[in-house]
């Protein structure tokens, strides 16, 4: 039993308007200072990597709960790699404070999903490392395309420069994953086969 006296709750307070991070794909400049646009862009790129870290971690957890250790480990590895990318953005831009810039749950960019993050609908509890790498490859390719588009549509030279750098990074990631895939065995045709019927938890 709670010891404290029941407080009279105040009347329901009005919720703040949800922040909508813009309805188009261009990063909205948040400040008139020259550094503002670039910081904004870098912060969003950072947030994209962080979202990828979170998503790969969730995928790893899901595969772990479903007893698929090989793919669990692979997703954890991918999460660590994305964390390195995120850290890299901060290291190369010392004045960046991405958490503050991205406060209040702002979304990285207003698209169907953070570009790098994998579509959870592509998962299967019996998926093989090859499949997981294909997912990761698709994510990196999407990110590469995205930054190239950002570069094309950038309104300032400094932002274009950063976008091109990001795109080049993603191109390198694409290459790395392609190389990884080439060293990964192809799954057998019946990789998804599970002779047992579904179980009922409740």
């Amino acid at each position, binding site marked *: 039993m709670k010891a404290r006296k029941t407080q009279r709750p105040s009347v329901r307070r009005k919720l703040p308007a949800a922040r909508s991070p813009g309805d188009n794909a261009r990063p909205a400049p948040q400040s008139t200072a020259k550094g503002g646009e670039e910081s904004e862009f870098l912060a969003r790129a950072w947030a994209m990597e962080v979202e990828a870290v979170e998503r790969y971690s969730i995928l790893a957890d899901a595969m772990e709960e479903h007893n698929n250790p090989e793919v669990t480990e692979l997703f954890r590895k991918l999460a660590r790699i994305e964390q390195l990318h995120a850290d890299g953005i901060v290291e190369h831009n010392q004045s960046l404070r991405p958490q503050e810039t991205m406060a209040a749950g702002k979304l990285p960019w207003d698209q169907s999903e953070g570009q790098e993050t994998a579509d959870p609908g592509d998962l299967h*509890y019996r998926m093989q490392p090859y499949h997981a790498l294909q997912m990761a490859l698709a994510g990196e390719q999407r990110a590469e395309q995205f930054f190239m588009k950002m570069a094309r549509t950038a309104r300032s030279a400094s932002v274009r420069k950063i976008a091109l750098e990001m795109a080049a990074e993603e191109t390198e990631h694409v290459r790395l994953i392609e190389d990884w895939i080439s060293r990964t065995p192809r799954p057998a045709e019946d990789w998804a086969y599970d002779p047992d019927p579904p179980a009922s938890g409740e």
Partner: protein
Amino acid sequence: MNTASPAAVPVTPQTFKSDTKPIWCPGCGDYSVLSSLTKAFAMLELRPENVVVVSGIGCSSRIPAYTSCYGFHGVHGRALPAATGLKVARPDLTVIAAGGDGDGYSIGGNHFLHACRRNVDLTYIVMDNHVYGMTKGQPSPTTEPDWDSKLSPGGTGLRTFHPLVIALAAGANFVARAFSGDPNGTARIIADAIRNPGFSFVEVLSPCVTLRPEQREWKTQVHAAPVGTTDDPARAARRIMTDDGFNIGVLYAGNRRPYPAVVQKGTRRVEDLETEFVL
């Protein structure tokens, strides 16, 4: 209520996630819905201790334990009455009711009607996968009439339940459809739903890759609703009754009077009531 302001620490979606790992099948749409829910909470700058997620029974109803908010995992089909009681007694809390299509539209059907009619300020999120998942594959009210199953061989032959029409007709003040494959879009719809006064209903198409693998195709079938939100129930009714089941967006956001919040400050003392009986 704790008066020390915790508002100094900014919330992120991660703030609203617990350490408990979901047991949903890999590929389940509910992972994205969880993500959208936590994003919505962060966008609204809520605090986990002021949010309660109330659910029934089923795969989707497992969601409260996966958030760091207060949770109530009740009995099958009765999330809405529990959520109603909570919100009326504690109007200061943000109350979310959640569950699946079996829990919400079948055994929960009666409560669904009356929760919409009562129009208490809460948000109801149904993760609809057109099947009973936890009990391994029986038809639900939103299952297609020709879907073959052991319990209904050859299909039920019944028209599917149309929850958005029912919600609108019964009196809900906000009716929306979302898709788990668009987590950011769904996050925005949920945030709008929470902000909207009265009963906000969000039906989220959330595929079951295990029992309905064909639902992976939903991502090619969903599309943004071709018209903007309306506050005219008649217009909304026409749209919803004629839509293809894949229109995504807020289809109705009305001006229906929400259930009046309880006035917490009483005007008399308990002792004074004795005068009712004194001779």
